[in-house]
């Protein structure tokens, strides 16, 4: 049984001068999935994310979100169609408080009293109460990541793109982040870019491996981890032995 994919790309390509950062990606995501993207640095994962979220215009190819052509849509239109993204580097309003950041995120989705209610809910869920009135720019890296994840999910997107959600987090925070991702996956489709294989093992069902701007292989975590080609291009490099 195949359902219509909630997100798909066909022959998606992005060139920077002579470099093909993303070189023809056919990608398809079913509703409710929790997909991990892995691949060495420069494999094109972040560029791929930025094209899907409208931050970069593709050179060629096709992007469809729930069947709608989104290739030439503006970033805000893509966001309104239900895509939320946490970028690789914490991308928040540093000069505003945690509360104000969450409020602005919630206000993009809700009106009136519903804004305050959803801010309260997310605050409780992510245990941000203690830091609610601190400026985001004063927080530790890991906390800022959490605020940003909170801002993404408070918008209740259909698809959440998380670019390295565990980067710079302590071990404890990483475990909590993995739990959070599994929990929000009950309501939302999620794509995660990560390098931390322990983290991926914790959350992943299907893993897509990027290499040199293309999809190398797509399979379950265990098969991917055992695949000799993947070990060569990616795991071998970071794993050692």
């Amino acid at each position, binding site marked *: 049984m195949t359902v219509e994919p909630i997100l798909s790309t066909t022959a998606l390509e992005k060139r920077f001068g002579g470099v093909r950062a993303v070189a023809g990606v056919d990608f398809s995501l079913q509703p409710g999935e929790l997909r991990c993207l892995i691949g060495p640095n420069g494999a094109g994962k972040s560029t791929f994310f930025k094209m899907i979220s409208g931050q970069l215009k593709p050179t060629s190819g096709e992007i469809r979100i729930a069947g709608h052509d989104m290739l030439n849509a503006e970033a805000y239109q893509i966001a309104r169609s239900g895509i939320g993204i946490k970028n690789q580097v914490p991308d928040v309003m540093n000069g505003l408080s945690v509360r*104000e950041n969450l409020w602005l995120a919630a206000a993009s989705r809700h009106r009136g009293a519903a804004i305050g209610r959803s801010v309260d809910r997310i605050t409780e869920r992510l245990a941000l109460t203690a830091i609610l009135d601190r400026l985001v720019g004063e927080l530790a890296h890991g906390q800022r990541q959490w605020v940003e994840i909170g801002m993404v999910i408070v918008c209740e997107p259909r698809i959440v793109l998380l670019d390295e959600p565990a980067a710079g987090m302590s071990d404890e925070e990483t475990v909590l982040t993995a739990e959070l991702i599994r929990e929000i996956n009950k309501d939302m489709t999620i794509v995660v870019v990560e390098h931390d294989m322990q983290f991926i093992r914790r959350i992943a069902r299907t893993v897509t491996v990027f290499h040199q701007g293309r999809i190398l292989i797509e399979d379950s975590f265990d098969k991917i981890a055992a695949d000799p080609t993947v070990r060569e291009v990616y795991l071998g490099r970071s794993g050692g032995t």
Partner: protein
Amino acid sequence: MIPEFSATAARPPKAWWWGVIALIALAMVMLPYYVDIALQLDLSIIFVFALLALSMGFLWGYAGILSFGQTIFFGLGGYAYAVLALNTGMTGLPFLGALLIPVAFSALLGYFMIYGRISDIYLSVTTLVVTLIFEKSIRSTSGPEYVIGSVRLNGQNGIPGVPGLTLPWLDGAPLSIEGVFYLTAGAMLLVYVALRLLLTTRFGRVIVGIRENERRMELLGYDTRLYKLGAFVLAGGIAALSGVLYALWGNFVAPEMFNLNQAAQVVIWVIVGGRSTLIGPIFGTGIVQYTSNWLGTVGVGQVTLVLGIVLMVFVLVFPRGLLPTIGDAFGYVRRRVAGRGAAR
């Protein structure tokens, strides 16, 4: 920190703030009974310029758009009022028309700049260039062929004899000096209160969010260009109001309204007062204007030089401006006092 002093405080003003506003309004009403006409005129022009400073301070401090050319709309407002009032013999409708014309122009200019996604620095340069183009163009209209309706533009001599506002309940007599004082003071106070309240609304909070991180706001689903254009047009409208009031105050408009000197002065008022507040630009205007008048009367000469030094001192020593610095100091003292109280 006092909410009033924070660019981020989106909370509704407290009761004490309304109290202060009411006291100031009362003082404005009483003032003409106690001070002479010369002081009323001096204060009126400060209020007019304070509106211009508010327009720029709001746009720069809250929306993060540094427009060097709010004088475009200031000058357009003044000229539009002069031309419309002299042509029609009316004053009320021209007053409204003179607000609409610059607002329409700010929408057009803002649309091309903001939807064209030019960078912040180019926006500053573009606005400055546009105001200088207006200045040069108006300066070159001294010939008799430059007529709008029956009004000659007069090039660098400007348009004299701009009629004062006549109000129906004043039997058609133009507004007195006292009337102009009330009009300018009222306009400034109203715009200040309206902007302060605007910051607590969704629109106000969103533009502050855009100032902080435009890309993130877009990724949250906000059409940031629309909000920025809204802020730009609003600021254009305030500058236009300032320009119309300027024409009413002096019964005169001239190309100097658009020139570099005027444009730079707005920036100085805002920097001295502090751009992260609304009250800052008002005080900045008052202090700078009062100082330059005073320097003029005591015969120091070199007013521009002294103002230049003042500006440099501010940029180097109080980069946030006067009022935010005072606000910080006040907050620091309050925390120390509170801390000592808690220690006991």
